[in-house]
C-alpha cells in the first residue's frame, strides 16, 4: 500500500542532514529542528500507539507545551486526527467559522495564542506511531515548501524515535522517552481508581476524567492527583 504523502528522498536526505547537524541526542533538539526546518513558530511530537495517546515526546517551546497539554487533556486535536486518518490535518485558521471539529481544543489553542495548527502522521513503513504538530501564531496555510518539508520532518522524526529505541534494546525504553510514562502516571493511576468507583473500563474512566477536567477547567494531572489522594470521587464506592 503506497503512501500518497511519502516525502521525496532528496528532501528526506536534506532534512536528515539538518537534524543530524543539530542533534544532541535529546528529544529537545528533535522538536527544535522540526520547527526550524518547517519554518513555523512551534512544533511538538506525540507518540500514539494502538490508538492510545502515550504522551508528548517534545515541544519546541512553552506555547507548544501548553497546546499539547490541551490536546492530551481533551483527547482531541490535530495530532490525534492525523494519527486516526493517517493523513495531514491542516487548519490554517482555528478561528474560522467553518472549523467545527474539536471545539475544546480550538478554544484552548486560541486562548494560548495559537492561530493555525497542522498535524502530520509519523509513519514508519506502514505503521503509524504518532504525529507531528506544527503551530503558528498567525493564521495562514503552510506554503508548498513548508508542506513538503513537514512530510519529510515527520518521516525523519519517526526514524529518529526508532533509532533511539534500537539503542535502548529489547526490554528497555529509549531514555529520550522515559518521561512519557512518568509524566502521566498520575492520570493512569486515577483512571484505575475511577474504573473501580464507577465499574467502567479504564478507557471509559479516562473519558470521565477528561470530561471533568474540561468542565472544571483544571489541568488533567491536577484533577488526577485529587482522585489518587482520595479528595475526588467518581460515582459510589463499591461496598466492601
Amino acid at each position: 500500500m503506497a503512501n500518497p504523502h511519502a516525502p521525496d528522498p532528496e528532501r528526506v536526505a536534506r532534512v536528515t542532514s539538518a537534524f543530524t547537524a543539530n542533534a544532541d541526542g535529546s528529544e529537545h533538539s528533535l522538536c527544535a529542528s522540526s520547527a526550524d526546518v518547517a519554518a513555523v513558530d512551534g512544533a511538538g511530537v506525540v507518540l500514539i500507539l494502538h490508538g492510545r495517546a502515550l504522551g508528548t515526546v517534545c515541544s519546541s517551546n512553552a506555547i507548544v507545551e501548553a497546546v499539547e497539554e490541551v490536546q492530551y487533556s481533551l483527547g482531541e486535536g490535530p495530532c490525534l486526527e492525523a494519527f486516526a486518518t493517517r493523513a495531514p490535518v491542516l487548519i490554517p485558521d482555528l478561528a474560522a467559522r467553518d472549523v467545527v471539529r474539536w471545539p475544546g481544543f480550538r478554544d484552548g489553542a486560541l486562548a494560548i495564542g495559537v492561530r493555525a495548527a497542522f498535524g502530520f502522521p509519523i509513519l514508519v513503513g506502514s505503521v503509524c506511531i504518532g504525529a507531528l504538530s506544527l503551530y503558528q501564531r498567525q493564521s495562514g496555510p503552510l506554503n508548498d515548501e513548508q508542506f513538503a518539508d513537514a512530510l519529510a520532518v515527520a518521516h525523519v522524526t519517526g526514524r529518529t524515535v526508532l533509532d533511539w529505541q534500537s539503542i535502548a534494546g529489547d526490554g528497555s525504553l529509549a531514555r529520550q522517552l522515559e518521561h512519557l510514562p512518568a509524566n502521566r502516571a498520575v492520570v493512569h493511576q486515577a483512571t484505575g481508581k475511577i474504573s473501580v468507583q464507577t465499574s467502567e473500563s479504564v478507557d471509559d474512566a479516562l473519558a470521565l476524567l477528561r470530561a471533568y477536567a474540561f468542565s472544571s477547567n483544571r489541568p488533567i494531572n491536577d484533577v488526577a492527583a485529587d482522585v489518587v489522594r482520595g479528595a475526588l470521587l467518581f460515582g459510589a464506592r463499591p461496598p466492601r
Partner: protein
Amino acid sequence: MPHQQRLVETLVELADTLVAEYDVIDFMQTLAERSVELVDVSAAGIMLADGAGRLHHAACSSEQMRLVELFELQVEQGPCFDAFREERAVRSDTPDDAARRWPEFAPQAREGGFAAVTAVPLRLRQDGVGALNLFSTADGALDDEDLQIAQALADIATIGILQARLIRDQNVLTNQLETALSSRVGIEQAKGVVAERNTIDVDEAFVLIRRFARNTNRLLSETATGIVDGSLTDQFLAETGSDTPAS
C-alpha cells in the same frame, strides 16, 4: 537470448513484490526459476548472508542444484563465495577450469552434472546480501549479454530483500516501543485499581502487585493487565485479601 516480453514480464513481476507485502522465500524461489528461463543455464540457486556474513541456502530451481549448493556451503568454497566476497561476477567455462579454482567444490558440481558455472553478487552499495548461482550442464558460462540480465535480476532481488529486512526491523522496534510504553500505563492503572479496591495508597498497592507477581511467577506487566481487565481479580483477591490493612 530471452524473449523481450518474458524478460519484461519477469522484471514487472519482481518489482510488484517490492510494493505489496510478500514472502521473501517465495520471492527468492521465483527469482531462481525465472533466471533459468531467461538466461542460458540449466539451474539457478540463491544464497543469502546472515548478520554474521555467513552464506545460507535460500532457494533454487532444482533438487540437483540444491545438493551442489549445500555442498558448496559445507566446504565454504565455490563461485557463490567468490562472487559474494569479491563483489563481482564470477565465471567458469569448463569442469577443468572449475577444478583448478575450487578443488573441493568442483568434483561435486561435476557429480551433479554441471560443467559451467556463473555467479553474480547480490549487493546494493555497501550492503552485500548474497549471491546468485547459475549452473549449466554444457560447457560455456554466461555470455556478456546474459550476464547483464543476470545481474539486473540480482539487483532487483537485493532491493526486495533489503526492503523486507527494513520493514521487519522497523516492526521489531515499533513493537518494543509499544510494549515498553503500554506496560507502564498498565502498571499505573493496576496500582489505581488495587489502591481503590483495598483502600490503600498506590505505593502500597504496588507492593501487593509485585508480591502477587512474584508468588504466582508472572511478569509484572502480565499481572497488571490481568488486574485491569479483570481476569486476575479473583485470584488476586484470594492471594492478597488477608494482607489488606484495616481502613
